């Protein structure tokens, strides 16, 4: 490496600086460590936004850099949430069972039965399914956060890439996978409480701190994960590996003819991003407090692509900007804090019309501003697009358009 990592990735330093300032700012304005100008629920929203930024980075890696429009990454996000949610719910129920029992000690079987009844009574069951075997074991469940989505992505990716499914077909296939997974989890027989999902995740077993403190701690954890994720992603895309995956995005056949194992690279990126997504999910759902299969519906994954596209794909800071911007603006609009616009004959209530605005804005961004929000950065920096007479960078479906590329 002739020039240093930071010199090649000036955005990393800026990003970490902004992230640190943001985190400290929120901390010292929160209820727990400051005057309480930011409410606890707001801290949670911000913490969740950081997690969404992390999964947006994963999406950017897989779509913006490798050209695979995956519509399934929210499934991995949800799976990660489920894995940590199982431990949280099991341990919490265990605490409840033990505290409600009398002084007469319970046998392990009795404790298990009581937990099963508590958790599964709502879906008419009382037995703990086999997949809950390790639910009381935190290290195992943390391992599962990485392992289960990782393995799923590995198997699915291997099947898909090896039969050279590309472009739109791959998108539809990943969407089908997400749909299948969410439909599966919707069943009571899946052993994860069907459409009730897992709840009460905001309480951390064994931690007596109140939600004011917990929310800030989770914000820190999310910020650390986001920072590390950003650095890791920047590291991946800045070296030779990054050049290869960008090559795959723009002209897969040429990269293959140069002797690279295109399938191997794709599989690596797909699995790695699935793991990043799962970690983001594992941090997100304890802050949300509840997870259900509806969160993993195909539409969520398409929204993820929308965030990245609005932020500008193919740049890590673009993905973060897109996710943060859309989710914060979205919660602003849907929270009913935007004043209505009376037109005389009709009053536009933004709670109802925000979705329409978002959809149309997204169409406009796709058509007119391929760089998305990152275009503003380029404008300030004076970076222009190359002149290619309208031709994209390569023949592949996921290749950069002329307007997306930097000179």
């Amino acid at each position, binding site marked *: 490496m002739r020039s240093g990592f930071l010199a090649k990735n000036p955005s990393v330093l800026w990003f970490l600086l902004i992230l640190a300032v943001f985190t400290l700012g929120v901390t010292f304005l929160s209820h727990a460590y400051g005057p309480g100008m930011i409410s606890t629920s707001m801290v949670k929203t911000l913490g969740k936004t950081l997690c969404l930024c992390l999964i947006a980075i994963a999406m950017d890696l897989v779509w913006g850099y490798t050209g695979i429009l995956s519509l399934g990454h929210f499934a991995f996000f949800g799976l990660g949430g489920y894995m940590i949610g199982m431990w949280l719910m099991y341990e919490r129920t265990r605490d409840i069972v033990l505290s409600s029992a009398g002084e007469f*000690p319970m046998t392990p079987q009795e404790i298990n039965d009581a937990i099963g009844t508590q958790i599964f009574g709502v879906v008419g069951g009382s037995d703990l399914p086999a997949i809950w075997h390790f639910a009381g074991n935190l290290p195992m469940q943390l391992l599962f956060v990485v392992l289960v989505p990782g393995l799923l992505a590995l198997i699915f990716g291997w*099947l898909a890439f090896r039969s050279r499914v590309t472009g*739109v077909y791959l998108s539809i296939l990943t969407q089908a996978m997400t*749909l299948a997974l969410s439909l599966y989890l919707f069943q009571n*027989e899946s052993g994860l409480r069907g459409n009730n999902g897992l709840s009460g995740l905001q309480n951390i077993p064994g931690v007596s701190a109140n939600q004011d403190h917990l929310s800030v701690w989770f914000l820190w954890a999310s910020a650390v994960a986001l920072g590390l994720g950003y650095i890791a992603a920047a590291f991946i895309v800045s070296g030779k590996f990054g050049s290869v995956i960008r090559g795959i995005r723009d002209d897969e056949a040429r990269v293959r003819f140069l002797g690279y194992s295109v399938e191997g690279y794709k599989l690596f990126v797909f699995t790695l991003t699935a793991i990043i997504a799962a970690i983001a999910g594992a941090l997100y759902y304890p802050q949300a407090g509840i997870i259900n299969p509806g969160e993993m519906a195909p*539409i969520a994954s398409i929204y993820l692509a929308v965030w990245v596209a609005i932020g500008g794909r193919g740049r890590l800071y673009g993905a973060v900007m897109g996710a943060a911007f859309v989710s914060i603006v979205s919660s602003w609009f849907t929270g009913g804090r935007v004043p209505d616009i009376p037109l005389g004959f009709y009053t536009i209530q933004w709670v*109802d019309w925000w979705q329409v605005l978002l959809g149309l804005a997204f*169409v406009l961004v796709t*058509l007119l501003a391929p760089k998305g929000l990152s275009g503003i950065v380029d404008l300030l920096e004076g970076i222009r697009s190359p002149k290619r007479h309208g031709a994209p960078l390569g023949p592949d479906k996921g290749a950069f358009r002329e307007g997306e590329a930097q000179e």
Partner: protein
Amino acid sequence: MRKFLIALGLLLAFALPGQAQETGITAPQAEAAQAQITGLAAVLAEYSKEIAKPSRRTIGPVIAAIAASGEGASRFLQAYADKRVGQRESDGAFFIIEKKGGDYALSDPATGAPAGTAPKSDIKEIKPNSGVRAEIGAALVRFLLSDPDPKKRRDALTAIERDGEASHLEPLRASIPDETDPAIKAEKVRLERLLTIRFGKDAPERVAAIESFGSDLGLDFRATLNPLVATTRTAFAGAPEGNVADALKPGRDISKDEAYAMLVAAKIAPARISASEMQQALAAHVEGGQVGGLPLAAMADPAKREEAYATLAAAGIVPQRLTDAEADKLVTDHQYADIYAEPDPEVTTAADAALTRVGRTVAAMQTVDLGLDALSLASIYFLAAIGLAITFGVMGVINMAHGEFITMGAYTGYVVQLFVPDYTASILIALPLAFAITFGAGVAMERLVIRWLYKRPLETLLATFGISIALQQLFKNIFGTQARPLTSPPWLDGAWTLNDVVSISYIRIAIFVLALIFLALYLWVMRRTRLGLEVRAVTQNPSMAASMGINPDRINMLAFGFGSGIAGIAGVAIGLFAKVTSEMGQDYIVQSFMTVVVGGVGSIFGTLAGAGLIGVLQKGIEWLNPSNTLAAQTYMILFIIIFIQFRPRGIIALKGRAAGD
């Protein structure tokens, strides 16, 4: 004297219920004889003593005489059986009575005309006992079964069908030869055989009745057989008694716990003290941190609990608990069997065999039914996907808003029905209107968005998704979130029923026909019209087509509009049986893409095959696990993902230049 003889004849007829013929002959004779002399009133006067103090031995001839007396007889018998007959103390006349405050409202038994009221003290209520009432009921049945009014005969049959008794069999048999209506006669014969299965006098007769049905699919036949083969599980100290269906061995057919529970139920063994009872007993005897000599903390171990309990039991503080070994010995020392409720083994064997036979036929018919279900599901998917077959299959444009076009069509139907109350007319208006509206929407979308992204399918996907969420919210804002009705015309209500197993609703047949029409329309447009020729030319090679004088912009616009328009019509059809909500399109979009991809992009017959495959598959999986349609969808999608591995280009893959890339 003559009357006495007739009555004697009738008595004989009743005393020998087996001789149906004889009764059949005697009844009309009696009727003729009675009609000459009297009506009901005379009969009542004649037998007033027997009617007032009815007993099972003497009532037979009386009922026969009443039954033969003509007008009012059935009314009187019905009232008699219902204990609504009273005798006036003053003159001994009979009336049908009805309580009215403290008095009785009287009506004449023969004519039914009101006959004033009488104070309670003047009237003696007649209360026949249950044996007499049964006799009356049988006579009433005979009476109703040969009533001149076919509707009454049919009602009587229905009543017997619902609630048959042994006493119905004879009158039913007697009424068959004189039945004039062939349909009712067939019903009577069938009912007679069903009653014979249940109440026939001996096993050969009942078995013959069972055999005569063959593998009849009727629910009534199965409903008659099922109670015969119903079994109860019982434990026996020695060899099983009764009509044994199946001997059960603990550990193989039933678990040892079940066997023990049966022993408890048969009062052979005492109920065991359960684990939770033991726990409670132990918890009640904690003394100084110790239970039964063991520390309280050790109670988390089940073995230690047993030990502590044994100590307590030995001391006589708690009742003795059977050890596992003792319980095991009890279980192995006894025998267990399923016992038929029906005592006759010949009958149960025949019934079992008949049920197996019927079961096979039912399974075959269910397969046919499942096939019809699958076909109708396939036509729904085909209908939803055929628009995509044009926009995605032919033009290669991913339109995520396709589902919203389906919704748009359905809402068009809803709005038309708001203005046109006649359902047939409204559907006929809605179909072309939905096509026109979604055609317009499709053309607008193509002009404004899609044509800028023709080489960029992934961007098209996302941009059309943006349109999709905007449209969805727009529908919500306009029509609200609740489901809107789209009512089908009355001639589409109901179902075409082949037998008790196979049936299909007319609306599904209509959708099947609609799918066929669209297939034909598509083939005609694409293969026989100028537009189709130009569409194919433009999709194969736009620049070459342009140099031949075709305007690719115009063709793309029209083709996209055509595909969207078909989605609109599909929306009307789907809305007829599904709920019309702003999200209904979402339910079909992924499946529609699957249909096109599985079938093979660019081939309409591929789409057809894809729809067929998905329909059959989904119904097949649902049949394996009928309670769970979600699981069926899950496994179907998994199957499709794996299928794509082996045939990435779908069932019917285009070859050569037509395949494009």
